[in-house]
Every structure is written in structure tokens, then in C-alpha cells.
């Protein structure tokens, strides 16, 4: 795309370290200069003498151990992590870096429970006349549909007042049939795939 055709030629870009991440929330995982040996010296109940604490052992289910496997319900940060790495169709940056996707604009209702949940994502285009808002919205929607279980209803909209034609864009994004029709379009699918290449 030529430079002159960009809707916003000079957007504000956040660096990766400025994006909200789980690490910042979780004070326990410190990564300072003095953390090299934290894993070795932190006091634990088990040690090399206690071989029952290894993974293959099944006798100690109640062990503290593996923090990665703890029960943590799906939250806003996880939704953010799913959609913020999507690339912008115009710039070589992600939606997170361009602040199109913001953590406070993601809402899950009801916040807990196994019943039907709704994820509402409000997008903020970099300029209020952004012509690619629908494509971005579609990409977010597709990404979430492919990543969330079926009991999640997905609602993607433009944040109120952030886009000149937010009503129309919201209508398009909310219309299941129009979304399905859009995904039949090969060229559009290619654009979407390109945008999702940066998602892990």
C-alpha cells in the first residue's frame, strides 16, 4: 500500500514492554538483575531428596509444585493476549501496540461460571475515519471464534465515539450472516490470514 493511501500515516506506537501482560500483574514472578538464583534458593518443602515430587509420580496430587497447571478461569487478560498480537492491515505493528485493542475495553459477563458467557471487545481505531475498522473487527471476531469454546458469545464493536460511522460498523460486525458471507470472500480471507500470522 502506498504511503499516501494510509488512513493514519503516523500512529502512536507502544513498545512491547508497555503492553499489559500477566507478568506485571503477578508480582511473584520477578525478573530483576538479582533473580538469577531465585528458583534455587527459594524455600520449598521438597528437594532432590524428595523424588516423589517429580511429574510422573501420582501419589502427591495436593502438592504445591507446578504453578502452570493451576486452575485459572478465562479472564480479560487472556482475551487480550489472544487478540493483541493480530497485525494491523496498514502498519507493521500489532493491534495491541497501536492501542486499537485495550485491556480495559474487554469485558466478560458473567465473569465466572460455566454457563453461557459473553465477551465484549470494544475497539478503538487509530483515527475516527478508519476505513479498515470493519476488517479489524472481523479479524478480532474470527480470532476469538477460533480460540474460545462454544459457550462464549462474542460481541465486537467500535468504542463509542471512536469511529465516525460506528453504528454501521457495529451492525456489520454483529450480523452473523454478513460475517459468514464476508468469510466466503477469498481476498478478504487472505487479508485476515495475513493479519493473524503474528498470533502464536
Amino acid at each position, binding site marked *: 500500500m502506498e504511503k499516501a493511501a494510509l488512513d493514519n500515516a503516523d500512529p502512536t506506537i507502544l513498545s512491547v514492554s508497555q503492553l499489559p501482560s500477566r507478568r506485571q500483574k503477578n508480582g511473584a514472578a520477578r525478573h530483576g538483575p538479582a533473580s538469577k538464583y531465585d528458583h*534455587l534458593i527459594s524455600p520449598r518443602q521438597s*528437594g532432590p531428596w524428595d*523424588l516423589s515430587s517429580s511429574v510422573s509420580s*501420582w501419589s502427591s496430587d495436593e502438592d504445591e509444585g507446578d504453578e*502452570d497447571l*493451576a486452575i*485459572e478461569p478465562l479472564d480479560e487478560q487472556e482475551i487480550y493476549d489472544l487478540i493483541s498480537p493480530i497485525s494491523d492491515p496498514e502498519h507493521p505493528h500489532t493491534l495491541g501496540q497501536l492501542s486499537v485493542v485495550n485491556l480495559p475495553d474487554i469485558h466478560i459477563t458473567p465473569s465466572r461460571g460455566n454457563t453461557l458467557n459473553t465477551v465484549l471487545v470494544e475497539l478503538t481505531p487509530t483515527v475516527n475515519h478508519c476505513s479498515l475498522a470493519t476488517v479489524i473487527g472481523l479479524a478480532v471476531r474470527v480470532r476469538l471464534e477460533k480460540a474460545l469454546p462454544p459457550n462464549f458469545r462474542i460481541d465486537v464493536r467500535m468504542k463509542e465515539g471512536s469511529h465516525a460511522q460506528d453504528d454501521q460498523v457495529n451492525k456489520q460486525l454483529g450480523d452473523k450472516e454478513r460475517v459468514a458471507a464476508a468469510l466466503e470472500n477469498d481476498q478478504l480471507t487472505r487479508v485476515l490470514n495475513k493479519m493473524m500470522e503474528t498470533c502464536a
Partner: protein
Amino acid sequence: MANFRDLALKYVLSEDEPAQRQIVEAAAKEIDSARANSTVVGNWAASVQQWISPASAGDDDVEDGEDGASGNILTRAKALSFLAGTLEALDRATLKTDQVLRLIGFFGAVFSYDHKAGITASAKALRQLYAMKNFRPDMAAKIIEDVCKLKEDFRLQTASTRLEIYELILSLVEDSSISSELQYHYGQSCGFVVDLLQLCQAERDPKNLMIWFKILAVILADYPQSPEVTEQIFKAFSAYFPISLRSSATPTAVTPDDLKGAVRSCFAAHQRLAPLAFPFLIQKLDQGDAITVAVKVDILKTIEACITQYEHPQNSVVPHMDKIWNSLKYEVRNGEVKETIDATLHVLRAIANKLNGSEPSGLKSYIDLVFKDCRDDLGSPTYTKQAGLLLVTVISANVRAYILENANLVGCIRQNLAQSKSPSHTKDLVLLLNSVLKERQKLIKTRKTEDEEQLKNETLTHLSSLFHEVYLPIWTKNISSPDTGQVDVLRQVVQGLDALVGQQVLRADGQVMLLCSRTTCSDICKLLTRILVKGLALSSNDNAATDSALEDDCVVALRNIVMNYGDGFPELMSGVRAEIRRRDWVTSSQYSLDALKDLVSRLAFIGCSEIPSNNALDVPSTRPYSPLQHFITLVAASLDLFPLAVPRDESVKEPLANSYLICVIHGAMLYFRDACAARHKPETLSARSSSDNNWLQEFEALPGDWLQQLDSADEATDEKLYSLTGDEPEVYRQFLRLSLFTLRCLYQRAASGTQPPWSDRILGQLANIAGLVVRSLDEKLQSLCNLAREAFNHFSAQTISPNKPRSELLTFGILEGLWPGAMVDLYKPGGVAETLLCDASDIGPPRAAIGAILANKHKGGPSTPDPESQTIKKVLEFWGNQIKEATTSTTTANPEAFTALNNIAMHIFAGAIARQDKNVANLVVPVIHEAISSEHANGEIVARSAGTLVRVGSSELLSSENHGVVRRLYKQWIYNILVKSLYRDVLPTADQDPARSGRHTTAILSIVSECPFKVYEEDLEPLSRLLITALNRPARGSEGLSSGLQTAASALQVLNEILANEPTTLEGHLEAVINGAVAVYGECSPKNKVSSSKSMVQCRKLVLQLLGALPQKFEERHLLSSSRKLQRMLALACGDPVRELRAVARQARANWEKLV
């Protein structure tokens, strides 16, 4: 004559290179043996006449395309190359001067009349003649003249012919005797150069260009010439600039960078070129956006090369300095590309370095020029960084430039700081000030002897006042409630303070000391310590900044500061101790505990990750210097503070604060070990991990609070510690000695102490420390100190019973790090090893680990009936009987008691298996086979734990770091003798008791899941059938859910492994595998109420990994039938309560979606 003619004919007719070489060697031998008799030489030269004469007459008239003519050309070329080849083979001294002259005449003439055939051979021959002993320099002029006669026809020659000519010319012009002859012959007009330039003006071949540029560089550097000639040469090579290389179908070995370098060496060949080169290059640079980054960098590097290599800078560089600066400054001021900015800075630095050797006024006027343009930019937030970069680059180029102008620059920065426009402007200015300081550190470190005089007379007041007049006011202004911008300023201040304390000065007597006074250093330490302990004073309600960047910077700065200012660390520690003591740690909040945890790891890092240097200060220190001082201070303080909290009431939860104090000691040892490793090679250090003295005996004479005494003493009490410098490897030995003393101290206190504060958690930490210390000592020292005995005595006078449960952890810690050779005493008949290992009464996890160690780390060889092997044999027999009895007795089984007992047995077996003990085959394997075949309930327990037999050998317990005796192929070995025979009992066709085959399946999978793929590669067929049976076994509930799941999990693990290595094995069983995996997932489903258990989560993870990997390994046709079902299942799995599993499920779902 006939002889030579024959040879020539043979040569012309031959196509084979080795044969041709033989022919010319024969001809050369002939001439050599005749001692270059003129008749012989004449005959030799005339031998090619038959090909030369007729052709020379008619050659020019004949068209190239005609067969006869091209044949003539070829034979003529070959004939001439016969002559050239002979010359090459000839002895260098054979030909006489007149013969050389005549031959030069002959071959030179070829350039005039035989442009098609003779050039390559003639050039080659002339090169040979040049190498002859009787070649005279005056002949060179003739050669060059002859060569130049080629004129326009030169470019029609092939590239390889031209290459010959270039090489001929290069060898001539490089020769110093020829050079003086040519200079005499042609004078300043250098006529031959003009001819050469005309001859070679259109060269395009990269290989040839490389030599052509070299010729030009040599001529420019070695031949005095008139400005006109210089200009002509300049035109010749500058026409190629900037040079690039087109990609070609037949690539040469020459790279674009080689070519750029060759042209660059022409530019930089002589200062005579300066008036031409600089304007030319600057004009190219000023084309702005029209040139690419690569070209820009090429130009800048060329300018740099000219500046560096031109002599007499006053005449060559100075006249162009203004122009260069005016053009280059914008590259940095407005530049965005790192490569060009870096290259520009190199040029600017090169100018300063060039002018360093000249008169002082040159350097001064250059720096003034830079200052004049950059001074105003410092006041503008947009350009502060760039202006700073330019200024720092120029003044830090060398010591003279720095001393001339740094005060001026610092003054300028201070002025702008006083009128700073914004926090980010302040940050940039402080950053600039820090760079000035850091550059000074570098200059002092790399100073040369000639710089020292200047450094001794350096004015320093503007630097020594920086803390109180610049850094402290900025700090005070921003520290109260910093926002993001102010935190950035503070971070820069911290880094500045770090650089400031590191400043050294050279006193008039040549001694190096710190720039800052003792009080300033101390004030800086106190300031930063406040940030370090801030966390202790806050609570979770204070909503402290989540970003710990400032604290991290403080930690690094403090580490560097106390390394330079040694007394800083005791000061810091006394402050921290007071802060810690002020608080109640019995009922402390999680927040305070986290703060303490951060603090202790930081203290270990600050004090011990660098060895302190011995720097002089304005007021000398009252403490003697030792490189281990900080380590001593830290350990002594921790020992002193321990225990921080002793709850009066047993019901109160164990206070973690005590554990953190032990963490400090462990951390200090790890960091100090790294600091030693960073300074010395591993072999130097391992040579220092020994000693001729029994350290433990030495410790007997020392008081229990020796470390505390060392810490508080004002004079050196231990000569070994206080006579060292930081660079000696001996520091490592003393560190180990102190570590062992600390360990002894902790063990003694723990062994006699009660719980609390000596909880199991802390004893575990002590075991870890013991492992670290003991494994660092070599075998000799371990034996000398009899550490094997101390493993059970715990450094106490009286022997402690090895069966006392709480002491087992301490025992384990020492045993873990011992060398087999240091444990010999334990294996005496009836000794500790036997008593301890043949005792089934007291059981707990450390006992199993101790068992594994003792069964593994002994010196016994495979054949000799040494006491160690005898003891282990007894032990294996004992435990074999225990297992046999437990799986055959009729008394009611107590599964829990047997699980614990079995665990010890398995560990002991595993220790022996890892070293491939010969007794395993007849004492262990039959017992295991019998146990898992027995119908007794305990048989199932044995089968489930069979994996332990293999796992222990590859665990940390027996790692090579811990000196474990682990044979490389032990897994293969035990698999062959234990597992292979079990397969036939478990195949679905076999007429077997299903419960028994189930146990066999469990045992096989338990072992196989611990082995690498290569081990069971041969048995994939029976194994895959067994895996499917295991996955689809309907009676999982009957064995107990946990046990069934364990087998399923092992099966999934093995399946994943097979899928990664040999997926085709599973091709026929895919549907069964998928159904089995889905069934297992269903049983572990998150909807299941007990699904929170770790084993279920693990199982689900393995299922998702397996399913996710299938589409990557198999073609669509094998998977399509299951696709719909799996996509539904994976979509649901994306809602798993465990986050990590959701990620795995999403990946698997994406893989399956690609199928359709």
C-alpha cells in the same frame, strides 16, 4: 635443436596438463644442464618458429571464423606457452643478462603484433623473466612500454589474459628497486602511469579490478607524481565509486565488500589525494535521499579511512575539517538509521584522534567547532540526545580531547539542567552527563603511559561536586511521588551515581584512587539503600508502583558501588539489619514476606556477584582489605539475625522469614562462585578446590562466632584472608574454606536445635547448601576432612544416630555432594552403609534418596570382590527379600506402609541399576518379575513404581555434578533384562489372567515412559498394541482411578514420543489411538468433580498434545473420519479451567482446522 623441436611439437599436440608439465620440465632441464649455452637457448627459442612465422604474416588478414586460422592461433598460443612453461620450470639463475634482455624483447614484441594468440603466454613469460636472477630493474620500463602497446586491444583480451597482465604490472610496480628506476626514468611526469591508465580504463571484471586498484594504490603511495598525474589516477578509480557488484551466473570469489575495500585503499593511499578525495566524497554524501544507506555507509567509511591513513593532518585533514563537519553533523542530528549514525560517529572520532598527534591548536579548534554547533541544541529537548552524542563522541576520542573540553561540556549540561524544559529533557541531559562519566572511566582504564602526565594534572572540581550540586538536587526533586517520566529521570540519576563512584583519579605520585570522597560515597550508598529497603516499610494497601525498574537499577548500581567503595557494603548491611530487626516476623503479612524475599536475593547479588576491588580513598579505611570481606559480612549478618522469628505457640504457621535468612547464605555462595568463575578458567578453579590441610581440624581451633569476629575486626586476624588481592585464584580456595565453616556452623546449630526454628523446610535448605559446598571440594579434601563421617555426625563431637528422622535431611545434603572415593569408610562390613540400608523400620523420602546414593556412589569395580560390592550385594538381597515377602505373605496388606517401603527399595535398586551393578540381574530382576506377576495387592504397587528404577539414574540426585556413577547405556541394559521378557505376557492374544497382564502393562509403561525412544525402538510393534490396550482398558475404575490414570498417562507419554520419532508405526491404529485418547480425556474431563487433581490435568494435557500433533504427522485421508468429532471436542477443550491447557487445546484445534 631437433630435441627442442620434438618437445615443442609434443607440447603443442598434447592436451593433458601433467604431460605438458613434464615436457617443459624436460626442456628446462636441457637448458639448465647446458648452463644456458647461447646455442641451446637459441635452439630452444627457435623451436617454435614453425608456428610463429607463417601466422604472424597472415594472421591479421584472416577472419576469426575460419578453421585454419583459429587452428593457427591455438597452436601458436600453445607454442608460446611452451616457452613460458619452460621459463617457469627453469632455474632462476640459469639465464644470463643478455639472454633475459633478448627474451624480454621477443615476448614484448608479441604485444605489438600478435594480439590474438600470444598475450597470455607472453605475459606469463615476462613474469617469469622478471623473477630471474639476472633481471635488471631498467628492463621493467621496456616491459611496461611493450605491454602498453596493446592499447585498444587490451579490452578485447579475455579476463584471464588481462589478469596475467595486471599481475605482471603489479609485481613490477611493487618492487622497490624497479620503483626507483622508473622514478629516475620518468620523473614526476610518470609517463608510464598515463599509458597504463589509458590501457586499463574500461576494466569491469571484479577479480581484475581488485589487482588494478592495488596497482593504483601502490603507485599513489610509492611514486612521487605531479598533481596532474594524481588527478588522472584519481579520476580513474573514483569513477568506480561507489562500487557494487551485480549478481552473476558465474560468481567469483570477490565480494562487494572486497571491492569497496580496494577502492577505499586507493582513496586513502596518500595525503596528496586529500584536495580531491574529500570534496568528491562530501559531494556524494550531500546528495541526500538519493543514496541508499549502504552507499552512505561506504562513503563514511571511505572518509574515515582517508582521515586515519593520511599523514600530515595539518595539511591534509585540517583544511577540509569544516566541510566534513558541516556535512556530517546532520547525519547524526537528523539521522534515523543506526548504521549511518555509527559510521558518522566513527569519522568524527577519527578526526579527533588524527589531530591528537598534531599541534594542540588543531584539536582545540576542531572541538570548538563541534561545540559551537551543538551547544544550542542541548537546550532543545528534540535535539539534546543527538547533540550529546556528537559532543561525547568527539571529546571521548582520546585523553587529550577529554581533558581539554570535559569541564566545558559538564558546565554546559549543568546550565541546561537548571533550565530543563521537561522531565524527558532532564533525563536526556542526565544521560549525557552519565556518558561523560562512563567515557572517562573507559579512558582511564585504557590509558597509555604518555597520557598519564596529563591525567595527573587534570582539574576535577567540576566532577567531584556533581553529587551534591547536580544528582542529589534532581533526585530530591523527583523522588517524592514519581510518575513515569520522573522514574525515568531517577533511573538515570541512579546510573549516574554508579558511574560517579566508579571514577578514579591519578594522583601526582602515580597512585590511583577514587574521585569521590569517603563521605560522598557513603552518602550515595545511604541514598540508594533507602530505595532497597523501601519495600519493607510498605504494605499491600500502599499500591506501590508495580514496575520495579528503579529498584533493579538501584540494585545494579549498589553492586558496582560497593565493589569500588568496599566500606559501602558493611554500611548498607548495618542499615538493612536495623530495618529487618525493627519488624515482627512472626505474624508478618505476605506482602512483607515478599519484600523480605526480594531484599535477600538482592543483598546476595549486591554483595557477592562481584569481587570487591581495593581502591584508595581520601580517608583510608579502618578495615583491612580482603576480597572476601563482603561475603563474610553477609554470612555473618545472616547467622547473627537467625532466627528472625520463633513463634511461642506451636499452632502458628511456620514463619518463612527464617528461611529467607538461609536463602541469603545460599545465594551469597552461588553468586560468589560465579564471580570467581567469571575471572578464572574452570581448571584454575578446580585446582584450588583442594588443600593439604584438614580444614575441619583447623576449624576446631577457631571460635564458633569466627565469621562475626572477622566481620567486626578492625585489624587483619586471618593472614590467609587478608593477604589476597581480588585477582588471585586463591580467593576461590578461601571462599570454599569459609563456606565449609559456615556449613559446619549451621549444621552444628541445626543438629542441636529444636523445632522451631529448625523446621524441615530449613533443614532442606541446609541440605541444599551442603550439596553445593561439598560437591565443590575435590575428592582428596573430602577424604582428608572425612566428610563421609560428618554426613552422620553433622560436625558434632558425639555421633548422632543415623536413624534419627530429622537428621536424615542433613545427612542427605552431605552425601549428595561426596565423591565415591571419599565414601570408602562407610562400606566396611557392618559399617554405616550396611546398617542404614538394611533397615526397613524408619522410612521417609530422604531415606530413599540416601539409599539411592549409597547404592550408587561407591568405588567397587565390576569384578573384584571388594567390600563395597559385598555390602551392596547384601543390601540388594535384603530388599529383594522384603519385596518378596510383602508380595507373597498372607497377612493383610497395608498399602500405605508398603508403598513407603517399596519406594526405598526401588531407589536402592535404581542406584545400583544406574551403575549397572552385576548383582542386579540375579538379585533384583527376578524379584521384580515375581512381584508384578503375583496376585497379591502389593504387586500392583511394585508395578506402578517400576519407572523409579530408571528415573533415578537421570535425576539430579546422581548427576555428574554430584559425582554419581551413571553408565551411559544403563537404560538400554535394564530395558533388555527387565522389560523385554514381559511383552509376551501382555499381548491380547495370550491366554493370561487379565489382572496379571494389566500389572505387566503398568510396569512396562512405567519404565518405557522414562526411557528415550531409541531404547524401545525395536519393540514398537508389540508396544503399540500394548499402548492401545492400555488406553482403551475399560476397567480403569476397578484398579483405582489414580493407578489407572497413571498407566494411561504413561501410555500417552510414550505415544507422544513415538509420534515424534516414528509416526508410521501408528498409522494402522489411528482410530483406536484417537478413541482411546478421547476416552481418557472424558474420564479426566473438567466436568468431573475430582478433576482438579494434578494427575488429571496432566492427563488432559498429554491427550491434547497427542491429538494436536496428529494432523502434522499424518495425511488428511487417515484423519478425516475423526475430524468432526475431534473439532467438537477440542472446541470444548478451549474452555478448560487450566490456562496452559487452553493454550494447548487452541493449538490442537488450529491444527485440525487446517485439515478441511
